[in-house]
């Protein structure tokens, strides 16, 4: 498994030399969504706290870095961390309220949605941050401004982000912290009864997750050069973030990456072809159908299924 991962990484490192610019774009998106999915995975997968408002963290991170860069000339390389810190503040708020008041399952989902929506509405009504029109970033191509002429720079950057999040998740998974999170996901009440401070661990997971997601916001802003409240704070982006780890296998290290490798090219290619024939939105039908199928037939996601398949042993699902 380890060798397979290393071999895959080596291929990805030399791959840009052989890719067309369109294929490079697709890979950038795969890595970026893989990164966001992995960040979500920390709280949504391992800890099983289904957050459907992660777009808010992307939005806050991206807006902060873009504003700092536009207004104060602060380089996004630093602004990125300010944005991530602010995203963590929101994460702390949502987590504190949600976990302190013991909201579980559906109620927690709604709370995260509500907070993301409040952020969206506020941002689209504050003219100082661009209002409903959003923010635009002038392209300078200056690497110090997190801007690059060569799309391959974004490729390696996105790959780096994905590896960073995966590294963080791997560290968490190996430690006691990760065990606690899985235990909370499986049976929170039993966990509490055993004396685990579930609040503390869920909170920590939320902080890590929102910080990482906030970092991703900066990449989003300086890759696309524009931010609209409806897209970066909206529910559809949250869905994009959630759907990859779920399809790949939530709560596993490989899941979000596998999910992104399955879904992102599928989405982009079908968006392109259906878009050409005027069928906008058809790629989302594919998404939806895939999500329904996975929930019904592979509730643990594709990765655990593949692993069982290759291991050749028929373990019964827990």
């Amino acid at each position: 498994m380890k060798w397979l991962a290393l071999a895959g990484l080596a291929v990805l490192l030399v791959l840009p030399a052989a890719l067309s610019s369109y294929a490079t774009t697709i890979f950038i998106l795969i890595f970026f969504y893989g990164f966001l999915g992995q960040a979500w995975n920390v709280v949504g997968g391992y800890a099983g706290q289904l957050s459907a408002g992660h777009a808010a963290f992307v939005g806050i991170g991206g807006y902060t870095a873009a504003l700092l860069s536009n207004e104060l000339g602060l380089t996004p390389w630093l602004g990125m961390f300010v944005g991530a810190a602010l995203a963590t503040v929101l994460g702390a708020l949502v987590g504190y309220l949600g976990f302190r008041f013991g909201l579980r399952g559906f109620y927690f989902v709604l709370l995260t949605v509500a907070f993301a929506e409040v952020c969206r509405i506020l941002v689209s009504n504050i003219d100082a941050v661009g209002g409903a029109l959003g923010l635009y970033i002038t392209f300078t191509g200056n690497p110090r401004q997190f801007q690059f002429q060569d799309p391959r720079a974004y490729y390696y950057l996105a790959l780096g982000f994905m590896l960073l999040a995966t590294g963080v998740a791997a560290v968490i998974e190996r430690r006691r912290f990760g065990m606690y999170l899985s235990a909370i996901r499986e049976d929170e009440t039993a966990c509490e009864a055993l004396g685990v401070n579930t609040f503390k661990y869920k909170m920590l997971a939320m902080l890590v997750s929102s910080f990482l997601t906030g970092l991703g916001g900066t990449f989003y802003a300086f890759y696309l050069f524009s931010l609209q409240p409806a897209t970066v704070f909206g529910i559809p982006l949250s869905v994009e973030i959630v759907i990859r780890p779920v399809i790949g296998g939530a709560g596993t290290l490989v899941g979000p990456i596998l999910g992104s490798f399955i879904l992102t090219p599928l989405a982009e290619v079908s968006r392109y072809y259906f878009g050409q024939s005027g069928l906008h939105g058809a790629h989302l039908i594919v998404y939806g159908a895939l999500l329904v199928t996975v929930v019904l037939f592979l509730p643990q996601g594709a990765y655990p299924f593949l692993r069982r398949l290759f291991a050749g042993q028929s373990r019964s699902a827990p």
Partner: protein
Amino acid sequence: MAVGLTLIFGVMRVVNFAHGDMMVWGMYLALMLSTRVGLDPYVSFVVCAAALFGLGVVVQRGLVDRIIDAPHEMQILLMLGLALVLENLALVAFGPEPVRVRSPLSAATLWIGPLYVDVARLVTFAVALVLTLGLYLFLFRTELGRLIRASADNTYGAQVIGADVRRIYAAAFGIGAACVGAAGALVSPILPFQPPSGLSLSVASFNIVIIGGMGSLLGAFVGGLLVSVAESLGAVFLKPSLKELFSFSLLIVILLFRPAGLFGKRAS
């Protein structure tokens, strides 16, 4: 429509994220009936309700039934997938332009004393009131209604006394969906709609249901009133684009302090 959602959630503890999209399908059905057959939405809502009843039963039998015992998260994801499919099928089928159903009533207005009343809204409100009342009577006065409430209260107990819980679920989901279909047709002359409306409608109805109380009909009705009053006041005193802020803030407060809602019986 919140009434439909509360029935589905209350009985089966299934969270229907596809709610708004089902409603949008009801609206488009009303539109087609109005343009092709010339049926007024205030008549065709019966047809829409029947059609959505069918859709609801199929969804319940084909999808939800399989994972009824799975954790909430899986059901949320399932319905989210269904919502994506429904919304974008509508987008492919009907295109992205906002549309509105024409009804002779929507142009008519009425003066009641000093009040200037839109007849279409008045009729919609009246029909919604009658439907809610009818549903209430159905749930509390008929055998099937009692069985639905019994299964909601204690699924195991209902099975013990010989109720066919799966059939009851299908009926409840169907009736819930039918309410949505009727609601969709009824508001189609008032509210311009387009396929992506489904999402905001779903979110709005969740607001209403949570604020009013999950599984309580009265709560759904009062929640609906509360949310619209809060949003209208917000629109009057601040910017109209800020009005949703009020319902979401209200939602957060209720979630934290009374997660069962104002009229809910118990926290879950």
